């Protein structure tokens, strides 16, 4: 693999629209479930074990075989009951393709794929492995929400990065488990759901005033 390309893909500064998504954190802050770094830790652990595992597995699967993109996209639809989260995932997939088109040569996979599928396709075009795609997905998921926590709650950025460092081994473990299943039939890929993220996203979508797109 090319470590530098992987770092590019995983960098929060990649212009792929991620900065405007809190990964479901904004509604959980609004309803008082996340107030501090401990609350954020519980949020991130649960998110990593659920949507983190699913995103990592689908990114790895798309990277392993980009011709399965459409099928994988359908698999994510079936795993994403919230219309607001499907929309957010597709918006981020589209933005990722926009960045990816400028960086590498991408096969045509539709205009608005789910974000993990787009990530896997970018990883493949960059010459990365399914395991790379998997870790980029898991890493992006936790760091995106963590950054939103810093902005929304004014959390101490050192405390948040200390938390991210504590979560790094878990992130590696989840990504490895996800990558190991990259070749599985779509119905057998991880499907861990997070009911509260679904509910929060549906409420968030009805707000008149919100700072993050999701």
């Amino acid at each position, binding site marked *: *693999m*090319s470590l530098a*390309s992987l770092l590019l893909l995983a960098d929060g*500064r*990649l*212009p*792929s*629209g*991620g*900065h*405007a*998504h*809190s990964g479901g954190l904004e509604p959980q802050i609004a309803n008082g479930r996340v107030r501090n770094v401990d609350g954020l830790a519980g949020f991130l652990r649960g998110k990593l074990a659920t949507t983190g595992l699913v995103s990592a597995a689908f990114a790895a699967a798309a990277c392993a075989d980009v011709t399965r993109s459409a099928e994988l996209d359908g698999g994510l639809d079936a795993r994403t009951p919230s219309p607001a989260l499907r929309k957010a995932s597709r*918006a981020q997939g*589209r*933005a990722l393709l*926009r*960045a990816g*088109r*400028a*960086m*590498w*040569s*991408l096969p045509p996979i539709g*205009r608005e794929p789910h974000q993990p599928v787009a990530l896997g396709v970018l990883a493949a*075009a*960059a*010459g*990365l492995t399914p395991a790379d795609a998997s870790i980029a997905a898991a890493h992006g998921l936790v760091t995106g929400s963590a950054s*939103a926590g810093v*902005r*929304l709650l004014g959390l101490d950025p050192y405390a948040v990065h200390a938390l991210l460092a504590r979560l790094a081994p878990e992130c590696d473990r989840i990504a490895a488990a996800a990558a190991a299943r990259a070749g599985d039939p779509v119905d057998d890929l991880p499907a861990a759901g997070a009911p509260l993220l679904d509910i929060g996203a549906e409420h968030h979508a009805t*707000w*008149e*005033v*919100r*700072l*993050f*797109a999701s």
Partner: protein
Amino acid sequence: MHPELHEHDPDEVPHTHPEPGVDPHQPLHGGPRALRIGIGGPVGSGKTALVAALCRALGEELRLAVVTNDIYTTEDADFLLRNGVLPEERIRAVETGCCPHTAIRDDISANLDAVEDLEEKLGPLDLVLVESGGDNLTATFSKGLIDQQIFVVDVSGGDKVPRKGGPGVTTADLLVINKTDLAPMVGADLSVMDRDARARRHDLPTVFLSLAEDKQATPVADWIRGLVAARV
């Protein structure tokens, strides 16, 4: 792959390169695209009121649409709707995740998607106005997002704002000094502002505006008309 870009070393990981002619800023459907003008400036300087005035002035003669980046998702769009200057389908609001400058400068993807959606839904457009969220004097638009940018300051911030400079005041293609009708009340000296703006901006134009007196924002609308005409 583009062999002309570089030779792949034998030990290099196989990877791809961008297709020739691929431009991430262009709408996917290709074809001519609208002139994109960014409108930035500090909170309360009158960006949204200026956008509303421009819609009134230009809405009949140009096919136009607006993308807003208010930190509160729909506030600006609602303002435009309430004022009846633009139908709803011509306005798109973009969430910026507490970072209005990021959305117009560092990660412009959501704004490009919004522009692309408008052009796709409404057909060919002449002009898209991209209004930034209220930010500070350092916020400017990426050239990947817009063709020209307007920076709006107002006299109530004090007549030293142009002297202070900052990327917005210094480099914007048009500087609008707004709310001149308030100048006597806040003790702002317009001649000082004019002199300082010239010193900071050299040949770049600056206009004074009072939307209370000029509801069509004539000098700004004329500047835009000139840009649109120059593209044809």
